[in-house]
């Protein structure tokens, strides 16, 4: 690991200022940062440790809003009974990710900003990676394995997949992030935080240098109470999603009043399946309509040879998650 300077500010203002310096990077739980620094993918000159900003650790589940501090730990939020009752998919998206040890350290802010698991991004022996070394090419597109890659939102520069689970629950349920940067505070719709790779995949979010995510807010909507996170992966636990769905349902008798579908393991950025949602609104939810929604969710997919399997798998996951959410309402 290349050495760096280390500071641990105890106020958000000082942290933003330190993190805005050239070559400086924020570290929270460190489970992405230390990993990528060890393997030489990230080589910051200065690490600004924000884990001392204890004001950002809290969270609350209110009757019309939920608010999570950026430094709340994945495990604490996943195990919180109020979260489990109000929004099961959110809790599940957290405890079905990583391992207990990682979740005890990893923060919600770091989680949403975790980096891709593209094997060529993570291996500096490959010279070609536009995300790691802009302009160098893309080892995945240039004859590499593409089984872990995006089937939505990729570009001719990069087809890296956004690997996180929690983000899929956020994007489908209208979350917002609050930030504080050198220029002041702002609120960003979660769906606009991440940017598609386009010509320059090294830019992954709209955050400015030094801008710290301070919290995540969600409006409480009825579909949250009947929600689930279904995750298909290579092994039953402790693996990234091959395809996953965060789904929530609000029913009006037998017809769907509101439905939310976020898709993990398939896209370059957190992904909401709006056309699939639309196909269900005002319809009955049956195995047939659920399967049709799954098919529609992947209609516009652009798979590569290695990632084509995600279409059938993802459609099954969407249908399965919809039926699971319905059965949780006792509507089986």
């Amino acid at each position, binding site marked *: 690991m290349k050495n760096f300077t*280390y500071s641990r500010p105890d106020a958000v203002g000082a942290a933003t200022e330190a993190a805005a310096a050239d070559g400086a990077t924020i570290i929270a739980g460190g489970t992405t940062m230390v990993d990528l620094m060890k393997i030489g993918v990230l080589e910051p000159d200065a690490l600004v440790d924000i884990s001392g900003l204890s004001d950002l650790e809290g969270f609350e589940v209110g009757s019309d809003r939920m608010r999570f501090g950026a430094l709340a730990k994945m495990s604490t939020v996943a195990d919180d009974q109020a979260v489990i009752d109000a929004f099961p998919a959110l809790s599940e998206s957290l405890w079905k990710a990583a391992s207990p040890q990682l979740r005890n350290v990893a923060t919600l802010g770091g989680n949403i900003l975790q980096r891709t698991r593209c094997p060529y991004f993570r291996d500096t022996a490959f010279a070609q990676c536009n995300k790691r070394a802009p302009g160098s090419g893309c080892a995945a597109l240039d004859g590499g394995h593409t089984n872990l890659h995006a089937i939505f939102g990729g570009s001719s520069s990069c087809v890296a997949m956004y690997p996180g689970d929690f983000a899929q629950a956020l994007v489908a349920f209208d979350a917002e992030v609050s930030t504080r940067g050198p220029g002041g505070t702002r609120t960003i719709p979660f769906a606009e935080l991440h940017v598609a790779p386009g010509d320059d995949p090294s830019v992954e979010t709209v955050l400015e240098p030094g801008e710290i995510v301070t919290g995540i807010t969600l409006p409480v909507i009825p579909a949250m109470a009947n929600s689930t996170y279904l995750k298909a992966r290579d092994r039953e636990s402790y693996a990234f999603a091959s395809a996953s769905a965060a789904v929530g349902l609000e029913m009006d008798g037998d017809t769907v009043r509101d439905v939310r579908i976020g898709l993990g393991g398939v896209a370059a950025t957190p992904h909401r399946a709006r056309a699939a949602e639309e196909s269900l609104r005002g319809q009955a939810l049956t195995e047939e309509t659920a399967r049709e929604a799954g098919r529609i969710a992947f209609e516009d997919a652009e798979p590569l040879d290695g990632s084509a399997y995600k279409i059938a798998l993802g459609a099954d996951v969407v249908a399965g998650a919809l039926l699971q959410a319905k059965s949780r309402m006792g509507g089986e």
Partner: protein
Amino acid sequence: MSKTPPDLRRPGVSRRGFLQGSSVVAGSLGIAASAQAQAQGETEPDSAARTIRLNVNGTSRQLTVEPRTTLVEALRDTLGLTGTKIGCNQGQCGACTILMDGIRVNSCLTLAVMAEGVEIVTVEGLADPTGDLHPMQTAFSENDAFQCGYCTPGQILSAIACIDEGHAGDAAEIREYMSGNLCRCGAYPNIVAAIEQVRDSQQG
């Protein structure tokens, strides 16, 4: 105030003292140090080794680490506590699991400088001073919950935390909440049995 901390290159300066001097409050130490750095025309940042205190197995230990030293390296290489193992060194196997303030973490993904002020427990700290093993150590041995033993220190600390967290309800829950500890020898069924035994004896 400069955003780049001055190079103190002076052992014995604690992290907090350094911090307050450089970027938060201009303490006397920081002013003296930056004046010294400026006099030498140096703007080199402080990535040098510094002295920190770690509280390990109930004893406060002083050691010198660089910012990039991971906690498992500090424990094994600097403090000589080689019970904690390194498997993958990437957060994927759990061999390096320790307890920090009672909570299980991977010490390979934690920087030593981030662990100051925390109570650390490693496998060396489990037996009581008379040498009596921790009940989880006994249960691992009684249930043959290991073969080569490489993953075992991490498994045992993780298993203790798994019960403390209330995630040892049944075998399926134990398997899910022990999934952060891989065992190359495949001792999984016996590890689950050991955890069930300790859980039951604690309830009884």
